[in-house]
């Protein structure tokens, strides 16, 4: 899609617009031939107003001076024509994500595009906002625009698309009608039916290890990301946290680890309050932590494999004393862990950034499991990891549980949570909606993830009835082309 919009150049092949081949050297060319794009990461200047963002690059002006009134009028006109109400003078950074996306759409529409590319537009939206967006797309279709809608979510394409193209690993693997059954689409997307099973015995839960009560945590924007969570994880069990990404899981885990202050509530580890402890103290108290984004939080890419294997142990004997590091001990540890965890690396001195994703993740897991653990927290432990490494990492997690550690697994892959967990907590908008058994029917879990508690009778109209049809992030995306 970036090629189509001129941000990247094709290595081969050609692009036809209305039957004629075109060469798109930049976004300017794309706009000229009538292609507009709403990026997954919004291309809006946060400190500019709505009108300024929309007119940018095509400013109405007299002799270089901007005609602000005309720009405002244009915004009003377009937003009215397509039923997308906007305040032209609002500043972007003050607007909620859904409205920012609306600005992006209006920005494309003011440029008179015929084809609108929407790249994963719903990833950042709440279900309500998603439904509004689908409605907008229908309206645009009715107004004669073509739309390429890229998404992972089956429900959405089926709801809005006229034609569906499935792309996997850079190739078109098939097309389908929206009336095709979901299973057929899923098959196309995944390529094979994924059965994720982790061999494990029934859990023998012991004493509570991690106790969270009434925890409130703010996100970077000072919004209430974790909103009064109560949880208990016992020794010898895996508690899985399921939920659509961005429902407070990240902040919850960071708060436990002392990386983000708790605004209210408490966290106890084996009965000791650790709410205000520094990360180092939490780690030393016997907590292992596999962070959700390994390249940002888990590894120092420029450091060697050996150095990364002691990233949070370097100050402990035998690796480090008060002042010096014992490089021999660090190397010995590296040799041992590389063998034990089957890390595929040329040498312990290779920079970790040169390893594949799966091997990078194994470095983190190896490091976190190299001290005796009371509690293991694993966030998205297998994201972006090859199948072989997934199985390996899963088995190590279960082994920790069987050794008697309490394990908290956070994953947005429902399959992973269900496969690993002994109990599943579903998080939605900063709260734990329910703690259920992993045997709970998929539909029920899906409803919970969408914020609907099937056990209560209240049913919000307009909320999607089915949850995420998520499929392991296997690198596929459908194109629903809504052609009129």
């Amino acid at each position: 899609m970036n090629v189509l919009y001129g941000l990247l150049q094709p290595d081969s092949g050609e692009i036809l617009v209305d039957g004629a081949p075109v060469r798109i050297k930049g976004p300017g060319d794309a706009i000229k031939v009538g292609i507009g794009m709403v990026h997954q990461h919004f291309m809006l200047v946060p400190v500019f107003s709505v009108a300024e963002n929309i007119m940018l690059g095509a400013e109405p002006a007299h002799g270089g001076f901007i005609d602000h009134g005309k720009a405002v009028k244009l915004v009003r006109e377009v937003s009215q024509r397509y039923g997308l109400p906007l305040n032209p003078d609002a500043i972007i950074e003050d607007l909620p994500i859904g409205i920012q996306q609306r600005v992006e759409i209006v920005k494309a529409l003011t440029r008179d595009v015929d084809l609108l590319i929407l790249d994963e537009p719903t990833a950042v939206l709440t279900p309500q906002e998603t439904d509004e967006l689908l409605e907008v797309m229908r309206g645009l279709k009715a107004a004669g625009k073509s739309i390429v809608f890229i998404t992972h979510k089956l429900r959405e394409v089926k709801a809005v698309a006229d034609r569906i193209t499935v792309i996997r690993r850079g190739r078109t693997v098939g097309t389908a009608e929206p009336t095709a059954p979901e299973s057929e689409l899923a098959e196309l997307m995944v390529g094979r039916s994924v059965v994720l099973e982790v061999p494990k015995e029934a859990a023998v839960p012991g004493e509570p290890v991690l106790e969270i009560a009434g925890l409130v945590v703010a996100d970077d924007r000072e919004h209430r990301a974790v909103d009064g969570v109560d949880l208990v994880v016992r020794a010898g069990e895996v508690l899985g946290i399921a939920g659509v990404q961005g429902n407070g899981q990240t902040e919850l885990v960071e708060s436990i680890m002392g990386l983000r202050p708790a605004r209210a509530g408490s966290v106890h580890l084996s009965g000791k309050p650790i709410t205000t402890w520094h990360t180092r103290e939490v780690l030393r108290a016997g907590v292992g932590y596999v962070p959700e984004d390994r390249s940002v939080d888990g590894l120092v890419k420029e450091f060697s494999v050996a150095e990364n294997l002691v990233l949070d142990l370097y100050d402990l004997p035998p690796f480090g004393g008060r002042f010096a590091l014992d490089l021999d001990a660090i190397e010995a540890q590296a040799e041992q862990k590389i063998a034990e965890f089957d890390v595929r690396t040329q040498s312990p001195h290779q920079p970790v950034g040169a390893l594949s994703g799966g091997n990078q993740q194994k470095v983190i897991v190896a490091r976190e499991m190299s001290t005796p653990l009371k509690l293991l927290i694993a966030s998205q432990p297998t994201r972006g990891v090859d199948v072989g490494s997934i199985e390996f990492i899963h088995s190590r997690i279960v082994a920790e549980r069987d050794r008697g550690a309490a394990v908290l697994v956070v994953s947005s892959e429902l399959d992973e949570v269900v496969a690993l967990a002994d109990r599943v907590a579903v998080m939605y908008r900063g709260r734990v909606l329910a703690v259920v058994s992993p045997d709970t029917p998929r539909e029920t879990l899906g409803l919970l993830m969408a914020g609907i508690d099937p056990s209560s009778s209240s049913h919000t109209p307009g909320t999607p009835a089915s949850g995420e049809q998520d499929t392991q992030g296997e690198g596929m995306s459908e194109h629903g082309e809504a052609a009129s």
Partner: protein
Amino acid sequence: MTTSTMDVELAVPEAYWTRARKTGAVMIVLGLLATILFGALASSENARFALGENVSGAGFDIPGTAGAILFGLVALAAGAALLVTGKHFGVLTGVALMGFIISALCWQMSVSPVSHIMPLGFIAAATFTAAIPLIFGSLGGVLCERSGVVNVAIEGQLLTGAFFGALFGTLTGSFWLGLLAAAIGGALLSAILAVFAIKYLVDQVVVGIVLNVFAGGLTAFFYEQVMRPDTDAYNFPGKVPSWPIPGLVDIPIIGPALFNGNIFSYGSLIAVAVITIALFRTRWGLRTRAVGEHPAAADTVGIRVLGLRYANVLIAGLVAGFGGAYFSMLSTTGFSKYMVSGAGFIALAAMIFGRWHPVGAFFASLFFGFFGALTGFLTSISSPIPSQFLSMLPYVATIFAVAGLVGRVRAPAADGKPYVKG
């Protein structure tokens, strides 16, 4: 529209000690200090504030002790108001600082062994004169950084401007051509900055620092080799003439400062106005700011990010280079090596203090210029306050500003980040 939970503000009550209240408390302390200490130290002699450019002429008298106490109380009251209400931060802080300064002046002037008179017109003129190079320098900074290129080479641009102005002003015998050459000189140095920062993606602070050394060495070398052996032929540009505006120049206090000017003083005012309008009212300005804040967004709507950055860095060089000529064609006649002596860094401070806004940078420059003028005045009346500490004030103020102690400043989001497509 629907609002998700994620967008609901966290219901954490705002702390009582806001920045305004903290500042209010500090102002109260300053007010107390002024009232008690300055009041006690001041003598009963009158402190006379003359309106004109010299000590004679109309003016008004303030008895030393009473004035010190009175204006100390003004500072105290403003601080207290700020502490209690937590509102009107700018106005109240300004009043408190003014009160403090006047109180200090009443004390100093009343006990001075030399003179009890402060010629306000002279102070105003000195303030503006000291501010002129800072205004041009900080405008150069604003132009550059608004488009996302960090400019720590202001010092070098001013120096190059001063050198080119003196050299070509002498060679051509025309100060107009000298001024033109000064601007071009600044732009040449800017061009190096642009190429290294934009094309070769070298860290922009690194380039800036190195360019300062480069410009300093180069101008000093040619000064030693060419100018010093034959001053008349290469380093005698003459002084730019002054153009008083009849009538307006007689306005008390500000008249001599604003309307007895020259190409630099009028030019600085015009530059501030033009750049402000251009940045905030024109297509170029909108695009410049977009490129400085979110270059990818600008790129996706077809704006040539790098081209705009090149243009802005070059214009910044023109402006700063022109301002540099002030040193060799107005404040003294002729170039001498390292004559800018840190003004470029104060200009950088003024740009930050002015929050990357031309008008803000203008007032910050005036603020810094005022302390320069005050330092001169207090030295002239043999004040015991060490002039070095007064000269430090701009730098201390800037540290306070960047540390968020008096309201946080925010740089353009993409400032210093090279833009690479894809």
